[in-house]
């Protein structure tokens, strides 16, 4: 395998994709590091699938270019990418073993190699008894496993999963998630594309947010969230009998009263340290927990979108 000096698996540079009446991608640029897990996030219709289809060379961009491992994207790269589309399925009347072999041969594997690896994966995901069964005889979960195998069997350097967990039951979603992490640990670069941001946030190293054909935000998840910290804390306390007096230290975002514990969400005013606020609060109540409220990617997204309009 060619080891290029570049540290980027994928460089998306100023991509524009214009359809008759709308612009699907408007000057989008991204960099995806080798070996990273990248989240391509945004609501439905934002342009994620358009971008993924360009990366998979199903369609071509009107402007801009994509570098795969430092080289200009070309048909040779197709066999080095594994793609699980959002719209996915299998031939209903074909035995699944044959089907996986067929799909992996389309990705350039020889028949014997395809059989070997298919057997390995069927055993790994515990569906080896179903080799000769047809898709119509399989449960949904098993079909998804077969689809996943077909996506990764040719050991792609880049694995693109479009809405990977939609339609998966929790058990299978977990199995697949672990397999993906394992592949990532072995060096594969992963792209998750989803509109359900919370589902992949914890998995991703970096993300890009796409809204209405434009990239509105990208970077490391940690950095992004940290940059959106706004001195907000959630404080748990036991019952208080005194009413909190208004203060110049912070303002209260939210108060919730529970059976055992109550919660207060506060945002510190400028130049105020957490300790100051805490000492003030401790006069009123017995604090038993403290958490910083860091906005989720979803919240950041909402905020960003609102800010633009």
């Amino acid at each position, binding site marked *: 395998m060619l080891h290029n000096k570049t540290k980027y698996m994928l460089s998306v540079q100023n991509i524009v994709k214009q359809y008759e009446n709308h612009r699907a991608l408007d000057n989008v640029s991204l960099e995806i590091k080798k070996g990273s897990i990248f989240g391509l996030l945004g609501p439905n219709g934002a342009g994620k699938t358009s971008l993924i289809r360009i990366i998979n060379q199903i369609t071509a961009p*009107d402007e801009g270019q994509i570098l795969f491992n430092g080289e200009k994207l070309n048909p040779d790269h197709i066999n080095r990418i594994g793609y699980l*589309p959002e719209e996915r*399925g299998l031939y209903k009347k074909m035995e699944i073993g044959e089907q996986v072999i067929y799909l992996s041969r389309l990705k350039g594997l020889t028949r014997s190699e395809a059989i070997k690896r298919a057997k390995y994966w069927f055993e790994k995901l515990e569906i080896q008894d179903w080799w000769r069964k047809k898709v119509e005889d399989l449960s949904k979960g098993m079909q998804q496993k077969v689809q996943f195998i077909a996506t990764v069997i040719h050991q792609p350097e880049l694995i693109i999963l479009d809405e990977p967990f939609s339609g998966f039951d929790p058990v299978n979603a977990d199995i697949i998630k672990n397999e993906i992490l394992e592949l990532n640990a072995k060096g594969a670069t992963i792209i998750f594309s989803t509109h359900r941001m919370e589902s992949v946030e914890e998995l991703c190293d970096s993300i890009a947010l796409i809204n209405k054909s434009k990239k509105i935000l990208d970077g490391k998840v940690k950095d992004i969230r940290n940059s959106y910290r706004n001195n907000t804390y959630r404080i748990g306390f036991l019952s208080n009998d005194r009413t909190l007096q208004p203060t110049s230290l912070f303002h209260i975002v939210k108060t919730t009263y529970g059976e055992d514990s109550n919660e207060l969400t506060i945002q510190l005013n400028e130049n105020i340290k957490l300790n100051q606020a805490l000492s003030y609060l401790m006069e009123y109540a017995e604090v038993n927990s403290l958490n910083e409220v860091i906005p989720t990617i979803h919240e950041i997204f909402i905020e960003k979108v609102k800010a633009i309009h």
Partner: protein
Amino acid sequence: MNKILLIIQREYLSRVKKKSFIVMTFLVPLLFIGMYATIGYMFYKKDDLSETQKVVVIDDSQQFISKFKNTPSLSFTYSNEPFNTLKRTFQNSGDDYLLHIPDTPKRPQLISVKKPGIGVISEIENQINEISRTQELLEAGIDTSILNAKKSKLNIETKQLTEEGNEEDASSWLAYGIGFVGAFLIYMSLFIYGVQVMRGVIEEKTNRIIEVIISSVKPFQLMLGKIIGVGMVGLTQFLLWIILCLTIAGAAGTYFASELHINKQNKEQVIAKGITSDSPANEGAAIVTALNSIPVAYTLGTFLFYFLFGFLLYSSIFAAVGSAVDSETETQQFMLPITMPLIFTFIISINFVINNPESSLSFWLSIIPFTSPIAMMIRVPFGVPAWELVLSMSLLIAGFLLITWIAARIYRVGVLMYGKKASYKELIKWFRYKE
């Protein structure tokens, strides 16, 4: 390229392995042979099948007495009883027809219980005309010896005509048959296998496997692989049919050959009505000559060519239609422009082209790519000038390339479109999309 082969292989094997393919392969030749055997049996044995019908002739003019010739289907008897008397008792007499020729033989009447068949009427009409013409000649003063001399002279000429006519007849009958069967097979297979291509495309779309596949291969490769794969299924089926038919025909042939041959001659004699061909051997030779005059390799070659390219052309349209819809029920609005030229050509071909293979309409139909696979197939056995064949084939190849290019542009967009009701306007838009 390797990937196209893989696709062809899958498309081919998945269809050939199907039970329906195997059933079709064995059932169709049996049906055809059964059908033709029945028709052939009825054709050759129709004289035996139908009872000889009795015609009672009352000839007031006295010109026709004993002059009607009995045929296998008609036997004539003569009666002197008055027509009106006989008419009353006719129903219970057991005779089939009552032919009354009045004194002036202007309006002969045919009375029957059942409605007489056209064959019966024309047979009697012909005989009456012939007899009365001979009578008129005699009345005109041409004496028997001159008439006989004339007749023998006439006979020579007729014999020539018959001989040439016989050969013509036999070979045009064969050309007729070969042209019809060839055109019919192409017509049917364009439908059957074209629709199979379309179903395959729709299946991939509804199964949602399409995007998985076209992330590995170009949509065009998938489309072409599917078309070629299905086309090969068609060829395989033809080949099996031909082998099966030849085997069965060979077996049946040895059994029926002699009987068939005799019957054929009988039939010819009936048709020739009195003008008997003097040597049966000649006639047999004529058929053999006719068979030899149809070059098998040439005919089979053109058939394969027109099947293949006609199929490629039409099935790429079928593929484009399949890509534009989400289910087979939605295909109807697009089917008409495909099926119309096919049905139109087929009907014109079997009714007009086959009788007028040299007419200008036949020429144009056999030149235009959409109609040429069927129309040319009709014309080929009659002999087509080389330049026409070359022109027709070149245009068909050009048409196929153009249509496939257009279809592929629609296909590549269509396969990724879900839940969008496709209209013709939409298809044009897809066609214009850049990659």
